[in-house]
């Protein structure tokens, strides 16, 4: 579609995302929006609010909680959801959490499978949700670049990348049989830079961990991992104070920070203009094996 010269690329991305979210609500029986507390979730929830203003968001937000998020994230989540009047549901794989699953003893692959993928599938089944919107972006990782806006999942929540539905124009096909479901990615076409530009333009609140401050960190495999929450140090490792910020937010044992002095959104934008590494480099879980994201997605991960 041709655009009007007055529209910036952010306007076009916004219009497309709102259209997608409205299609989900119009056509699906029990939609839910995955809320992971990060910047992408903040933007997606903001778009949902715009899509249904002056009314409220007509679906619940679902946080799949591993119990290993940062305290700032929990605080932010509860305040943000209260302020916008969202219907927040939190789901945890309690048996696994009680049994003490953790990335140090079980490895990141098993830990993720239990606390994230398994928990997500159970939460979706329990809630009877037939459409789950997530804030994944095609730019993030090469297998995500292949994913449709509407991603069909079989009865086990699995993705079959070789056999995806053709998706032309803005005609999305959300039809499915009972038990099957659709994952929807309303901000597929946004980049990290677009997200921050939009956070700036719309003044969207984000977790303060995205802004630089001095933190106690340990350098592990070339990554900065915070020690304040009891990360186990291996022999010879030593914690140091470093001015840094988080580019992505996940579980505290597996989320690294980057050295940075960006304390405001415009400073982050300026920093991103010259950054040489992708945001997912700070996530240990993406590098377990070749195609690890594709593998996780096939199994039901977002």
């Amino acid at each position, binding site marked *: 579609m041709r655009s009007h010269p007055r529209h910036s690329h952010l306007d076009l991305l916004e*219009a497309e995302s709102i259209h997608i979210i409205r299609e989900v609500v119009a056509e699906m029986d029990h939609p839910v929006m995955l809320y992971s507390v990060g910047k992408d979730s903040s933007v997606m929830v903001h778009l949902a609010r715009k899509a249904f203003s002056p009314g409220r968001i007509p679906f619940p937000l679902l946080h799949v909680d591993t119990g290993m998020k940062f305290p700032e994230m929990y605080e932010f989540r509860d305040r943000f959801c209260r302020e916008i009047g969202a219907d927040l549901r939190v789901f945890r794989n309690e048996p696994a959490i009680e049994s003490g699953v953790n990335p140090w003893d079980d490895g990141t692959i098993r830990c993720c499978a239990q606390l994230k993928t398994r928990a997500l599938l159970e939460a979706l089944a329990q809630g009877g949700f037939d459409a789950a919107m997530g804030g994944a972006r095609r730019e993030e990782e090469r297998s995500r670049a292949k994913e449709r806006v509407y991603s069909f999942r079989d009865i086990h929540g699995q993705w079959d990348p*070789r056999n995806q539905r*053709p998706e032309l124009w*803005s005609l999305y096909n959300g039809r499915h049989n009972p038990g099957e479901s659709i994952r929807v990615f309303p901000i597929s076409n946004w*980049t990290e830079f677009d997200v921050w530009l939009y956070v700036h333009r719309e003044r969207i609140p984000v977790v303060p961990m995205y802004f630089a401050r001095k933190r106690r960190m340990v350098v592990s495999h070339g990554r900065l991992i915070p020690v304040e929450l009891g990360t186990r140090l291996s022999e010879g490792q030593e914690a140091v104070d470093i001015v840094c910020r988080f580019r992505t937010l996940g579980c505290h044992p597996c989320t690294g920070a980057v050295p940075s002095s960006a304390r405001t959104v415009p400073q982050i934008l300026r920093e991103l203009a010259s950054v040489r590494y*992708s945001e997912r480099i700070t996530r240990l879980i993406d590098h377990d094996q070749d*195609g690890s994201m594709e593998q996780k997605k096939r199994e039901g991960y977002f």
Partner: protein
Amino acid sequence: MAKPLDPSLRTDLLRFSTAGSVDDGKSTLIGRLLLDCRAVYEDHLAAMAADSRRLNREATDLALLTDGLKAEREQGITIDVAYRHFATPRRRFIIADTPGHEQYTRNMATGASTSSLAVILVDARQGLLTQSRRHAFISVLLGIRHLVLAVNKMDLVDWSREVFERLRSEFIAFAGRLGVPTPACIPMSALLGDNVVTLSPHMSWYEGVPLVAHLENVPVGSNDEESLLRLPVQTVLRPGKDYRGLAGQLAGGRLEPGQTVLVQPAGLHATVRSIRLGDKVLSQAAPPSSVAVEIEEDLDIGRGALLSDPARPARVTDRVRAVLLWMSAAPMVRKTWLAKAATRTVRCTVDAVECRIDPDTLTTGEAGTPDLNWIGRVAIRFHEPVACDSYARNRTTGSFVLIDPLANDTVAAGMILDDDGHIEGLLQARPSPQPERLLTPEESLVSADERSLLLRQRPVTLWLTGLSGSGKSTIAKALERRLVDSGHACYVLDGDNVRRGLNRDLGFSPAERSENIRRVAEVAALMNDAGLIVVTAFISPYTQDRAQAARSIGAERFVEVFVDAPLPLCEARDPKGLYRKAREGRLAEFTGISAPYESPTSPALRLDTSADSVVGCVERIVDWLLSGGFLAARSVDRT
């Protein structure tokens, strides 16, 4: 208050598609674009290098950067569409990166459906292959009007201008058959970076710009001003009893509070009360904004309704002919499907499979049974009436997909054709103004004087202007009869007739009215060149348009005739019932009622049809022609 950012961050967006196989260097080209525009991160590069080693590739393989699926990396092929993102200071880009082999035609179509430009990649040593032609054809069929031929691997043909020029002429000829007169052709080496981001030092003979500069400068915001209002309603927002918002994304035209819109297919008129985007109330909205529209009337409107321009509404019909692209591995064995068109999903039946189109030769052949990657024309019957346009007019209201009602898969994509069902209608580009210096008029060997002698008349255009119902057509026809009876070659160009053929793509907005008049003036000028006397009968309400017509036809041949009658008289005559419709609000932009008429200030002739008879008016014109020396005196005997 947020601080204003660097204005260079305010960029627009171009979506373009690429197709080709690894052999053409497509992945290398995309890798080069991303690398040189700094859209690849070092950890992604490191992953690529590690994969190259693990898979025993000779050198670091840029394709490993773009092929996202494990199977693709292992087999060294591209299976599915991938979307990639990069930006320059001028523009944000989304690449729909599609595999080029024949068996992936459906992926090409998917990538093309949201793109406004296609990069057709060829290997300079191989030339135009079947898949290059197929990609160009699919792209244009899906509505792309900007083609770029990227002639890659120029380093392997010694940067030969001759090789490039040969491919260029071949491609321009092929694109011409698709209705794209001016494709861009760029010689490059994606591997070495020549003419991708920076100008090549090896091809000083090349006068154009590198690929990225071209992508940055292609217009993306044009044509929209003249598009017609189309807003498919997605859902209705009802947060309380005081607000009821029709939510949807604008697919054409402009929307303003106070405007009258037609709700289709119901056929009801509604008045826009407010337009919202989030908590902002807008004074105007344009495509592709996603808005919520509140209307004054209490009407039953829900998902699937279409808000349209009342003067140029969509077609409401249960039967369409369409070009269909079959996308399912299973052939079309059943007849009844679900069709999803804009925001409406209805059952439909494929009544006839009419012919198959061969994308390589651009010819039609025996239909056969549609199977994977089949393209052809079908007749479809919707089980309920649907409001739709031809795809050439609107990509959103002119497209649909077919869904298998049992398996739920998307099996086909369709593009609706004009009423006449001509496939060419999809391929013809809208006319773009040609730079005049490129055109060299051919001199005729026959002079204007010779033609005058032959026909015993001097050519002239009698330009009749006036309100609807003032008597233009009646006078024009009587004058034509009178002149032909006395042996003169004369022809009438009439508004309704021209709009049925030559100008059937035009509506009644000021811009479309101007284009209507421009074309008529050009036709009149050609007929005058042929020696004919031309009488035109058009309302032609704008002074500026009549002045433009006078320039096209030439001042010495243009005679402005003001057919004058007071509005109440015209309205009382109302020969076509149009005034009544306009007064009832069923016809927007009707001259005299809801659109202006600018009377001529100094016409060559003014005919008062409230006082004079038709014969009287005709004889005044004949007298004027005689006295002006356009007709030989003895040729028009008085009756």
